């Protein structure tokens, strides 16, 4: 099933572009028509058939869904709580989605008696890779599956696009990745929680360190020319300039189109940069880091950045080129605290892999739900009360305990990590970051 949907999703952007090109090259109407129909097809399959899996005592099948949900929202402790897990299982974020599922499931498996006595029934829906597929997935969970809570969402635009849906239907959404500042800023809602990060945070945390320890001047900024890239760079600039640093230049390669960063690397060299602060993720992070070394910048201009530059699956792709890169993030798997030691051990024995930040975020999303339900003793009949209960808890995360600000965004400590022998290792605490509300 997942593989069927992959085809449609991978090809969507391509079809649109190939249609455009084909139009120029040969037969406009024909290819355009072909592109249009395929896009629709991709869209339909992207909404996907959800897969339900029961955990704990719950064994309700999909058909029983609506009734289970009605009784759930009518309160009833003991009834299974329907939780929508909205994560990418197709498209470019697939690996990220897998980490999130693992983290979420680990919390359910290791806390069978939690959630205020309620059992959890998980309904997983594919977020896909575009805002459209993500919003459609959210609509499906809320209107058709009638879930009580939704957890997940990788894509920021999908989270913003689904904002009104959750706000108006008063269904809590716990975001386990999407970083757009506005989600807990201008577009904040009492029903929307975030246990991951805002784009500003990891970069803001690095500004003072860069000034004190790397270079008080001549830092060059580089990130893709889309919303997340812009917000990430702005966060760094804010802190670095406040510390007294001067930025020597900034450039923004086209997002999802750039295969070769050499011209941008030449720009960095020509600007006389003393250090580079970068944000890339996914395949772009692999290409950028490798070419940074290939063109000789690796040994001469220190490369620092937002933690996503070296997080998760990209690190294997980067290989030796990633060694020595220092980044800022709210998690690193060798963080020295008892909660993390316990978490890493459980994660490794369950999945035979080290957890990444995406796994921790989904784990904490489940934990936030648990803590909220514990406050209300499993009662979700009054959603307004339930979300206030969730907003006031302190989350004992493997990343270190954190709380949520008034806009339900984490107030959390960031860590400096360095890639040593192909693995992120803890260097030191940076600062605790709290966004303005």
């Amino acid at each position, binding site marked *: 099933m997942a593989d069927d949907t992959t085809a449609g999703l991978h090809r969507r952007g391509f079809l649109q572009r190939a249609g455009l090109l*084909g139009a120029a090259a040969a037969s406009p109407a024909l290819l355009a028509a072909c592109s249009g129909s395929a896009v629709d097809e991709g869209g339909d399959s992207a909404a996907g058939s959800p897969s339900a899996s029961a955990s704990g005592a719950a064994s309700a099948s999909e058909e029983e869904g609506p009734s289970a949900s009605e009784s759930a929202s009518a309160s009833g402790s003991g009834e299974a709580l329907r939780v929508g897990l909205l994560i990418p299982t197709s498209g470019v974020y697939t690996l990220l989605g897998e980490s999130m599922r693992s983290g979420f499931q680990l919390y359910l498996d290791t806390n069978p008696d939690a959630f205020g006595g309620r059992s959890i029934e998980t309904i997983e829906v594919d977020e896909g890779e575009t805002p459209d597929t993500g919003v459609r997935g959210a609509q499906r969970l809320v209107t058709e599956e009638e879930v009580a809570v939704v957890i997940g969402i990788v894509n920021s635009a999908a989270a913003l696009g689904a904002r009104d849906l959750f706000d108006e239907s008063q269904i809590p959404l716990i975001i386990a990745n999407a970083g757009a500042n506005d989600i807990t800023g201008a577009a904040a809602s009492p029903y929307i929680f975030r246990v991951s990060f805002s784009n500003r945070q990891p970069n803001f945390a690095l500004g003072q360190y860069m000034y004190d320890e790397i270079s008080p001047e001549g830092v060059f900024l580089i990130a893709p020319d889309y919303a997340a890239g812009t917000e990430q760079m702005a966060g760094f600039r804010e802190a670095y300039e406040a510390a007294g640093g001067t930025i020597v230049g900034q450039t923004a390669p086209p997002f999802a189109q750039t295969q070769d960063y050499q011209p941008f690397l030449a720009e960095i060299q020509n600007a006389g940069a003393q250090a580079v602060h970068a944000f890339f993720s*996914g395949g772009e992070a692999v290409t950028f880091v490798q070419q940074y070394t290939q063109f000789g910048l690796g040994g001469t201009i220190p490369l620092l950045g937002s933690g996503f530059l070296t997080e998760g699956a990209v690190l294997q792709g980067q290989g030796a080129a990633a060694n020595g890169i220092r980044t800022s993030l709210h998690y690193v798997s060798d963080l020295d605290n008892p909660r993390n030691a316990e978490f890493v051990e459980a994660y490794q024995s369950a999945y035979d892999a080290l957890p990444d930040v995406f796994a921790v975020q989904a784990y904490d999303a489940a934990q936030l739900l648990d803590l909220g339900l514990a406050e209300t003793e499993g009662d979700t009949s009054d959603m307004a009360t339930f979300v206030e209960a969730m907003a006031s808890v302190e989350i004992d995360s493997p990343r270190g305990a954190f709380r949520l600000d008034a806009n339900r965004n984490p107030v959390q400590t960031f860590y400096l990590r360095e890639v040593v022998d192909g693995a992120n290792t803890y260097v030191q605490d940076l600062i605790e970051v709290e966004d303005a509300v």
Partner: protein
Amino acid sequence: MPDVGAFLSDNAVTILNGLARGLVLFMIAIGLSLIFGLADVLNLAHGAVFLLGGYAAVQLAPDGNGFLVALAVAALVGLVLGGGMAAAVRPIAGRGHLDQALLTLGASYVLAELASLVWGDNYYSPLAPAALGGATQVLGVSFPTYRLAVIAVGLLIAVGAYLLFERTQLGALVQATVADRGMVSALGVNTSLVLAGVFGVGTALAAVGGVLAAPVLGVRPGIDSQVLLLALIVVVIGGLGSIRGALIGALLIGQVESLGVFLLPELSAFLLFGAMALVLLLRPEGLFGAPREAAG
């Protein structure tokens, strides 16, 4: 009068890199261009073959050893796939571009999906052969040795293809088939075989290009469509069915993507399509394309 020498030495790395990019693009575009010129088929499966070439490098030469084996296997697989495509499009020859586009697009989905089943959604970055691993001093600047090798191989293939087409009987036969297939057929030549040969060799070049590009661009799902898009732009700029056009178009796009982006970083997202639009405006048939009576 600006100092051209100083400009060239200041930007040597960028220009060289554009040359390497352009020559990789040429290897993909030449097949696309010839197949269109000869068989009137816009082969949208070309990018997927490039991707398979990349996975050949991942599978057979992840650490750079066995690179030649990967090249040979990719060429062979490309040859077979190309021959297969030639056979597949034969029954629908003359049924217009839509049917061909659907067929070749379908083939590209199948190939990319099979690759995804085997190699997953991971990002791979196979290493260059150890002998070409470091950097070399060229024109007073340090440049990755492997990319110099890509330039050398690309130039060899370009010169070889040019000589083959312009100086040999085989090339004359192919050119004649492009010009008037019915006449060549009437002379007793099996034009289907010529067609299958061009399909096979053109597709093999795309697969070889995939292997060569793997240590530079990495290998991941989706890169097939990015590369196909660039190759289509090259073909549009250079003109359909022209080797010279494919080469000049590819070198031009290579420089647009390197020197152009470096000089005008804020316009980098528009340069590619700007260059294409300009060519279409001034010479709709492409720089070296024969004027066509009506757009197909």
